[in-house]
C-alpha cells in the first residue's frame, strides 16, 4: 500500500507537466460543456472528437522524434500526402476500401522510414532532413492531387465520424437500439479510433526495447550507445512510427472530408501545431521525457481553446490575437518550473 502510494507520488513528481496538462484540459473542457447550450451530449462530443482526431494523431506522430531529441517537420506534409493517397483509393468494394486504407498507412510509414534512414545513415539532423523531405511529400501530394477532390466511401465517412450507434446502424450490424448497447452507443467512433490506435500502438511500443531505446537516446545518446542499445534501429523505428501516426491522421482527414487536398499552408500549420501540442502535453523538446498520450492531451487543449470562440462572443478580427496570447500563455506555464529553480545550473540541463 505504502509502496503504491510511493510509486504514485514518484510518477506524479516525475511527470508533473503531464498531470498539469491533464488537469487543465479537464477544467477547460468542463467549462466548455457548461457554457454550450447542448453541453454534455453525444452530438457535442462527436463533433469535438472529429475535430481533434487529425491534430491528435499528428501530435502523437511528432512525439516520437521529439523523444529522440529531434523534430519532424514533415509530419504535416506526410498527413497531407497520405490524405491525398487515401482520396484516390478508399472507395469501392469493402476489400478495395480495406486495401486502400492499408496502402495509405503503409505509404506514410514508408515515408517515415525513409526519413529515419536518411537521418541515421546520412548522420544528418532530423529537423533539417524533415524540412526537406516535407517539401518532397508536399510535391508528391500536389502531383497526385493538383486540385482538391477525390472520393471516399460515403458510408465509411458517416460511420467513422459519428457515434457507435450510427456505426452499427450504417453497417446494419445489429439492432442499434438494443438495450444492452445503450450504455455505450453514444461513444464517438473517432474517439475510439484515436484511443485504440494510441493504446494499441503506443503503449506496446513504449514498453518494447526499441521504444525504451528511443527514450534512452533522447536522454543521452552517447550513453545509450555505450549501453549497447540498438540506436539505429530505434531511430529508424521512431521516424517510421511518426510516419504511421501521421498517416493515421491523413487517412482520418480524408475520410472525414471525403476528399484529399494538397494544401501547403494546412500542412505547415499542422506541423507547427503538432509541436505546440507536444509541448503543451509536457514532453520535453530536449528528448527523453514525455510520451504520446501526453501529446494527445496537449492536442486536445489546443483544440478546446478554439472551441471557445464559438461559445463566447469575441470580435472575429480579435480572435487570432486572443488565440495567440492564449497559446503563448499556455506554453509559458512551463516557465513556472524555472521560477522554482534554486540552482541556476539546473536551467541548462
Amino acid at each position, binding site marked *: 500500500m505504502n509502496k503504491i502510494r510511493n510509486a504514485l507520488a514518484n510518477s506524479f513528481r516525475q511527470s508533473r507537466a503531464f498531470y498539469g496538462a491533464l488537469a487543465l484540459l479537464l477544467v477547460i473542457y468542463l467549462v466548455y460543456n457548461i457554457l454550450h447550450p*447542448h453541453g454534455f451530449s453525444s452530438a457535442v462530443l462527436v463533433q469535438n472528437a*472529429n475535430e481533434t482526431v487529425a491534430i491528435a494523431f499528428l501530435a502523437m506522430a511528432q512525439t516520437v522524434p521529439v523523444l529522440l531529441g529531434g523534430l519532424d517537420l514533415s509530419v504535416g506534409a506526410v498527413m497531407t500526402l497520405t490524405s491525398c493517397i487515401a482520396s484516390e483509393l478508399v472507395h469501392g468494394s469493402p476489400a478495395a476500401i480495406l486495401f486502400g486504407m492499408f496502402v495509405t498507412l503503409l505509404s506514410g510509414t514508408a515515408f517515415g522510414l525513409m526519413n529515419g534512414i536518411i537521418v541515421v545513415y546520412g548522420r544528418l539532423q532530423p529537423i533539417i532532413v524533415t524540412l526537406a523531405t516535407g517539401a518532397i511529400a508536399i510535391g508528391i501530394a500536389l502531383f497526385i492531387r493538383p486540385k482538391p477532390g477525390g472520393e471516399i466511401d460515403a458510408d465509411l465517412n458517416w460511420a467513422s465520424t459519428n457515434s457507435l450507434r450510427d456505426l452499427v446502424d450504417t453497417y446494419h450490424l445489429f439492432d442499434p437500439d438494443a438495450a444492452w448497447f445503450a450504455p455505450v452507443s453514444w461513444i464517438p467512433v473517432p474517439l475510439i479510433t484515436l484511443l485504440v490506435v494510441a493504446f494499441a500502438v503506443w503503449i506496446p511500443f513504449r514498453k518494447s526495447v526499441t521504444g525504451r531505446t528511443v527514450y534512452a537516446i533522447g536522454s543521452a545518446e552517447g550513453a545509450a550507445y555505450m549501453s549497447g542499445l540498438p540506436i539505429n534501429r530505434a531511430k529508424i523505428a521512431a521516424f517510421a512510427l511518426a510516419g504511421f501516426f501521421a498517416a493515421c491522421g491523413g487517412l482520418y*482527414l480524408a475520410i*472525414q472530408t*471525403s476528399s484529399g487536398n494538397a494544401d501547403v499552408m494546412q500542412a505547415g500549420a499542422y506541423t507547427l501545431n503538432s509541436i505546440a501540442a507536444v509541448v503543451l502535453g509536457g514532453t520535453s523538446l530536449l528528448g527523453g521525457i514525455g510520451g504520446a498520450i501526453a501529446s494527445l492531451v496537449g492536442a486536445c487543449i489546443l483544440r478546446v481553446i*478554439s472551441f471557445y470562440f*464559438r461559445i463566447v462572443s469575441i470580435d*472575429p478580427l480579435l480572435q487570432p490575437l486572443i488565440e495567440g496570447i492564449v497559446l503563448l500563455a499556455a506554453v509559458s506555464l512551463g516557465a513556472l518550473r524555472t521560477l522554482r529553480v534554486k540552482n541556476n545550473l539546473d536551467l541548462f540541463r
Partner: protein
Amino acid sequence: GPKIVSGPGAEPKCFAPWGADTKYLQWEKKKGPYKVAIVNGFVGNTWRIQMIKTAKAYAEDPAVKGKIAEFKVVSTGTDAPAQLGAIEDFINQGYDAIVTIAVAPDGFDRVIRLADKNNVVLVPFDNVLDTDKVMQVNENQLEMGRKWGQFALDELHAKGVKGGKILEVRGLPGNSVDRDRSVGINEVFKKDGGKWEMVSVVGNWDDGTTQKVVADAIAVHGKFDAVVGQGGSNGVIQALKDAKHPWVPIAGESENGFRKAIAEHSADGLKGISIGQSPGLVAIAMKAAISALEGNVMPQLISVPLPVATYKELKDGQNYWSNLPDNFFTVNEFPPCGVNISGPAIMAQTESNTK
C-alpha cells in the same frame, strides 16, 4: 432538409438563378428571429477583412437587424477539420443558418447531411462547393475568366497584334475559384487561333507575391503583350512600373489601386478591365439564408452579376476613389438586394484618424 420545388423563387432580381436548369429549394418555414453564424476560412487578406466588416455591418442594417437574434463570426484558418467542426458546433448549438467560405470545394458531405437533418440552412459563397446539395451564392468564375481573356484579346486585336506572349497570374493553388477562372482565360486564347504563348505564374492573390513573380517573369521573358491576372492586381501594376515595362492591356480584379492606375494610364496604353469578386457577397449570402428560413423558394445556385468596369467606364468617386488607399475592393454594394454597404464606407472610414 429542403424540398426540391419548382421556380420561380423569391426576389428573382436579387436571387438570380445560375441558369435555366438551376433547381429550386424550399426549407420548412421557421419562426424568427434567427441565429446566424459565419464560418470563414482564413483572415489573411484584405478581401476577407472587408468581407467580415461587411457581414457585421449588414447584420446591423435595420432591414435585417430585427430578423437576427444572434450573430457570430469565426475564422478557422486553412484547417479543414476546424472549419467542419465549427459548422457542426453551430449546428449543435441550435443555429438556424450558417454562411461559410469553404477552405476546399470538397469534404462537406457530413456537415451537409447534419444540416439537413437539423433543418439548418448552410450557405457557402465565394469559394463554393462542388455539390448541388446546398444553396450557394457566387459570381460566375468561368465567365469572369472568359471576360478577362476576351477583353485582352480584343484590345490586342485592336492594336493589330495577332500573337505573342501573355502573362497569366494565378491565385492560391488548389482552389476552385482559381481553377475556374484560369480555365476561362485559357479557353479564350486557345479558341482565338492566334499564336499565343501563355506564361503563368502564381501570385497567391496577394499584391506582394504577385509583384515579385511578375517582376521575375519580366526579367526572364523581357516583354509581355498583355497581363491577365486574378487578385493581386496592384502588384502587377507595381512590377510593370518598376521594370519600366511599357503599358499593355491588363485584366485584373477590383482593387481600388488597380482602378486608379487604369484611370491614370489608360491613355498611355494601360487598357484595363477590372472584374472583381465582391466581399459584399457575404451580405447576399446572409440575406439568402434568412429568406430560406422564412420559407421562401430559393434557387440552389444564386448568381451574382459580374461587376465589370473597363477603362472606359471608370469614374472617380463612383466606382473608384483616387483619394483613398489602394487596397480595398471597390465593388461592394448590390442595390437590387438592398445591400448598400460601400467599400470605402467600411474600409476607409477611419483613414483620417490614422493618417
